[in-house]
């Protein structure tokens, strides 16, 4: 069947090869004036993704809860950069968000207070508190060492101690008068008879007259209650003294602290929360003045009830969690590529002190949500989902509209350390997740909360229609890549070559890939090769070199496969004809590298029940799509040939020397050709290779990887020497996808190789066998000598055999005759 609408070259056997112009579409940059990419204005990737960009703008513009964005696309599409650029544009007009600080909660130290301040003022508060402490570290000791304080303290001491001393002196004098000595024992006091201020030894005392001894004993018995009473009064005096001294300390501390606090308050008079904190600081300073005056005394008196890592003055510090002081105007856009729980919602760190882990409000660290508050945060969805606790924590934050710092160790209950429960901070950030499409679809299907939190989908295209406009935009994108990475500029030919390659990467001459990362790699490598060649500007040759080198680096398996064919280890004929044998084409993708490889497909036929045995499926190497393709063949055969009787065919199909899985239906047309060849006993040309799927009506349908498949067979033929008759049959629908290598096109132009667009099985079989397929005549029969006639006759013969044998049931593969 001629395919003149495809621009074919008529061939002697009636099937036309494609003209070179249709084997690849060249980029036309005539509408874009530039000499090198240095002349082109920069552009960001979002321009070529208008649908996704609009979605992001919508998400960022709607301030309603749940209108967060999930950006999806292939990994090479540079979604993060594109999203970031769109967000920057969308949020640039917003006011800077406020600062947040954590301060000590003096009443409940394990629950630090969060205070919000106008943008940029947090560092000033922190500095103010540091100055306050610095001032008090001088002022308070000075106040407590002052003559005035010491005098007043001495007066209190003297007054109260004096009262105690007077009581003891009186008792002592009374005891002395009664010739009684009061002795200090290790644990208390005792009384003994005395003479001349010295205790009388027992032997001398026993020598005293009885009356005198009894008098002493009586005196002791009289004094003992007084001693007890006097001593019992001491704790009350001590308390009185302590209270008086404490009052003096407070008074002294007030005088020193008030002035400093008032100065600090003046700077933040417009912020009630700060003033409240400063009042709390004042009260704490008064109560803990020993921290400044005599740290050793503070320890001795148990003043370290609030355990403090580091300096004891940290309790008055300010932990600046987030500040806009260093930012220009606009909302923050934060990218979190490692979204652990701690990196996301913040964390509480610990210090080891004498073997124990301790913490305080100063060790609270901000998470990405804190930093993004008031703006937007980009999170890698895969990273988020692969980090334990992060995804649920993010959903909780979005649900509650607040950021709660959660400690993993406490969440899972493995930590016995006392931790903090900082005040939650209100969340007002637009969350943008980005990742593979499959993640979005899985979350949408499996997580019931997902739709509630991510209502806006930004779907990044893998490719875009190829028009002069899109080519111009992509050219500017290439220019931007070169500029950003300080690469050598590209000349016009190089840019055109890059765009050609973009179409090849899109597997479609009519589309351009948007996998910017792949283009980026290409341009970087080309710039390198230009440098190696001593060129200041990247030319087409450098792009070609980069593409060739990329292929070469990844081509080890491809070359090994080709070598096996060329050494006749893997059997592929590229000349002659064989019955029931055709060169099929498949594509192998290994990482980023895909290549085509011819595979011999054979068929054997015999009388049977109409079953076609797919050997790949029987041994479980065939995938479902492949099996579907084979089953379609049965439908085609039954519909075309077994019009008045049951199919009496048993056939087997196999991919020879295929030891791995086979899937896809792109070989179904090749399999049908082998079946027809086997049935008609018509040899198929081995200098041709075939790709394309087929439907039950015998129409050849488009397949993927057409360029790689053609080039795979071409490479084998070229290695053996192009005969001029070799070529590939492809579905006509795939012509629009052709972006073949230059050497293939050149060979076709020279008539040494050919690409045949085929719409039907009849056209294909005619080309492969050199015999017309034939069309049923008015008598319902195919013309004599046609291939279809031969097939039908063979099938009738099979039916006759079965009838002769009276066998109504066959199907066993081992009963071939």
């Amino acid at each position: 069947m001629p395919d003149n609408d495809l621009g074919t070259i008529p061939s002697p056997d009636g099937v036309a090869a494609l003209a070179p112009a249709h084997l690849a579409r060249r980029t036309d940059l005539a509408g874009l004036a530039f000499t090198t990419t240095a002349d082109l204005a920069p552009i960001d990737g979002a321009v070529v993704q208008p649908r996704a960009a609009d979605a992001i703008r919508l998400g960022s513009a709607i301030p309603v809860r749940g209108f967060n964005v999930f950006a999806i696309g292939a990994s090479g599409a540079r979604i993060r950069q594109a999203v970031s650029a769109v967000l920057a544009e969308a949020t640039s007009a917003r006011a800077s968000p406020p600062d947040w600080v954590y301060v000590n909660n003096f009443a409940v130290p394990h629950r630090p207070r969060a205070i919000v301040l106008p943008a940029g003022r947090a560092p000033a508060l922190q500095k103010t508190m540091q100055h306050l402490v610095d001032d008090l570290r001088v002022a308070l000791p000075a106040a407590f060492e002052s003559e005035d304080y010491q005098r007043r303290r001495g007066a209190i001491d003297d007054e109260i101690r004096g009262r105690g001393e007077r009581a003891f002196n009186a008792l002592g004098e009374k005891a002395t008068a009664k010739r009684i000595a009061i002795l200090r024992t290790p644990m208390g006091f005792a009384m003994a008879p005395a003479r001349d201020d010295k205790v009388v030894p027992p032997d001398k005392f026993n020598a005293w007259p009885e009356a005198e001894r009894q008098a002493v004993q009586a005196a002791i018995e009289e004094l003992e209650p007084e001693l007890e009473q006097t001593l019992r009064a001491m704790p009350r005096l001590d308390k009185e003294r302590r209270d008086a001294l404490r009052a003096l300390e407070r008074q002294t501390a007030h005088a020193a602290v008030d002035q400093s606090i008032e100065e600090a308050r003046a700077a933040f008079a417009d912020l009630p929360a700060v003033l409240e904190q400063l009042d709390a600081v004042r009260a704490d300073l008064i109560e803990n003045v020993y921290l400044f005056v005599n740290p050793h005394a503070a320890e001795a008196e148990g003043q370290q009830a609030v355990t403090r890592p580091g300096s004891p003055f940290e309790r008055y510090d300010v932990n600046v969690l987030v500040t806009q002081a260093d930012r220009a105007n606009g909302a923050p856009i934060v990218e979190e590529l490692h979204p652990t729980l701690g990196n996301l919602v913040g964390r509480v760190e610990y210090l080891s002190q004498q073997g124990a882990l301790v913490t305080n409000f100063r060790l609270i660290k901000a998470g990405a949500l804190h930093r993004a508050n008031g703006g937007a945060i980009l999170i890698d969805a895969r990273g988020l989902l692969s980090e334990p606790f992060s995804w649920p924590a993010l959903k909780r934050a979005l649900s509650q509209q607040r950021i709660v710092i959660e400690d993993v160790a406490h969440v899972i209950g493995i930590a016995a350390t006392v931790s903090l429960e900082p005040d939650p901070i209100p969340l007002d950030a637009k969350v943008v997740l980005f990742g593979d499409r499959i993640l979005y679809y899985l979350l949408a299907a499996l997580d019931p909360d997902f739709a509630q939190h991510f209502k806006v989908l930004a779907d990044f295209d893998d490719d875009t229609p190829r028009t002069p406009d899109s080519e111009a935009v992509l050219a500017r994108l290439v220019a931007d890549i070169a500029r950003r990475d300080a690469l050598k500029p590209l000349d016009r030919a190089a840019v055109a070559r890059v765009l050609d390659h973009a179409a090849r990467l899109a597997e479609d001459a009519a589309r351009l890939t948007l996998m910017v990362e792949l283009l980026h790699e290409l341009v970087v490598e080309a710039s390198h090769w230009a440098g190696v060649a001593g060129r200041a500007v990247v030319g087409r040759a450098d792009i070609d070199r980069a593409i060739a080198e990329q292929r070469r680096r990844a081509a080890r398996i491809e070359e090994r496969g080709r070598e096996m064919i060329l050494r006749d280890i893997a059997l592929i004929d590229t000349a002659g004809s064989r019955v029931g044998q055709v060169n099929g084409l498949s594509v192998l993708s290994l990482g980023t590298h895909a290549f085509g490889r011819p595979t011999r497909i054979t068929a054997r036929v015999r009388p049977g029940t109409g079953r076609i045995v797919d050997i790949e499926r029987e041994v479980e190497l065939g995938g479902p799509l492949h099996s579907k393709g084979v089953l379609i063949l049965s439908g085609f055969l039954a519909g075309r040939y077994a019009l008045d009787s049951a199919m009496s065919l048993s056939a087997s199909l196999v991919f020879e020397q295929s030891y791995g899985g086979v899937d896809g239906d792109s070989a179904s047309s090749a399999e049908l050709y082998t079946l027809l060849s086997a049935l008609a006993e018509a040899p198929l040309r081995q200098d041709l290779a075939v790709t394309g799927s087929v439907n039950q009506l015998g129409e050849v349908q488009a397949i993927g990887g057409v360029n790689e498949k053609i080039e795979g067979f071409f490479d084998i033929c070229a290695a053996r020497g192009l005969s001029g008759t070799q070529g590939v049959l492809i579905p006509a629908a795939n012509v629009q996808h052709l972006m073949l290598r230059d050497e293939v096109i050149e060979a076709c132009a020279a008539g040494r190789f050919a690409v045949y667009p085929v719409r039907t099985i009849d056209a294909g079989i005619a080309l492969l066998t050199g015999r017309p397929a034939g069309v049923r005549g008015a008598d319902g029969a195919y013309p004599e000598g046609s291939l279809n006639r031969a097939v039908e006759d063979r099938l009738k013969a099979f039916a006759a055999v079965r009838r002769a044998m009276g066998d109504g049931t066959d199907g066993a593969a081992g009963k071939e005759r």
Partner: protein
Amino acid sequence: MSDRAGEAALRMAGRAAYQRVLLDLCNAAADRGGIRVAAELARLLDLDLTGVFVEDTALFGLAEYPFARELRLPGHEWHKLDPGRIAAEVRAAAETARRLLDEHSAPLGIRSLFEVVRGDPSGSIAALSGTSDIVVLVEPAAPSERLARAFPRAWQSALRSAAAVLLVPPRIARHHGPIAAVVTSAGDPALATAAAIAAAAGEQLLLLLPHDDALKTAALAAARAAGLGGGQVRTHRLRAATTQEAVLHALGTTQERLLVLTRAAGGVPDTAASHLAAARRVPVLVVEPDAAG
């Protein structure tokens, strides 16, 4: 006094004259501040520190009285005196004193000894001391200690001894500040001792001097000889009468850490030392006039 004479005085009053700090641990054990002061003094003057714990013989005899009872603190309960228990508690108190001495001396790297003697606590330390000793007495902070009257007697005994005496009052006001000295003559040993301590401590020396230009000149020369620069020595005028009031007036608002006096012989009366220590809440070191030679 010439520089040479000043150096001689320093040698005699400092490293040459004193060899040991003798610390009465009976009272000091209740006040770590007193032990710290003694240890720092030993370090500054490069002296040995000997802590003495006196076991009261009267206490052991008391246990033999059939009617003897003890009011035990802090429960305020009366118990019969048991000689075995008393002995064990005295040993424990001594051990505590030893531990405190070690705790304060080891970090300063000074040589320390610990001795236990049995006798009268009010006189034993003085009896052990000599001219090359500085006896350190720590005044008990608790008013109840007045009952036993041990400290006043120990203080009087120490003043009567040949040793210098450092009186440490309860709750010292400060551990840093100038070293003040009351100087009444060119050969006043208080000058040499105070200068030596100030130089070692890196503190200022404050000289409280009567109005006498020659004396002032000599005193400043002695201070220079001790290694103190001009900016490290100040002088305050002392009224002619060397009473405790005069000393307090001369000190004014000074935040001294130590006051050095020479005992009697034209200087401040002995009784004033304890009053000055209480008033200023700083240790007062009373040195012997004989030390000046």
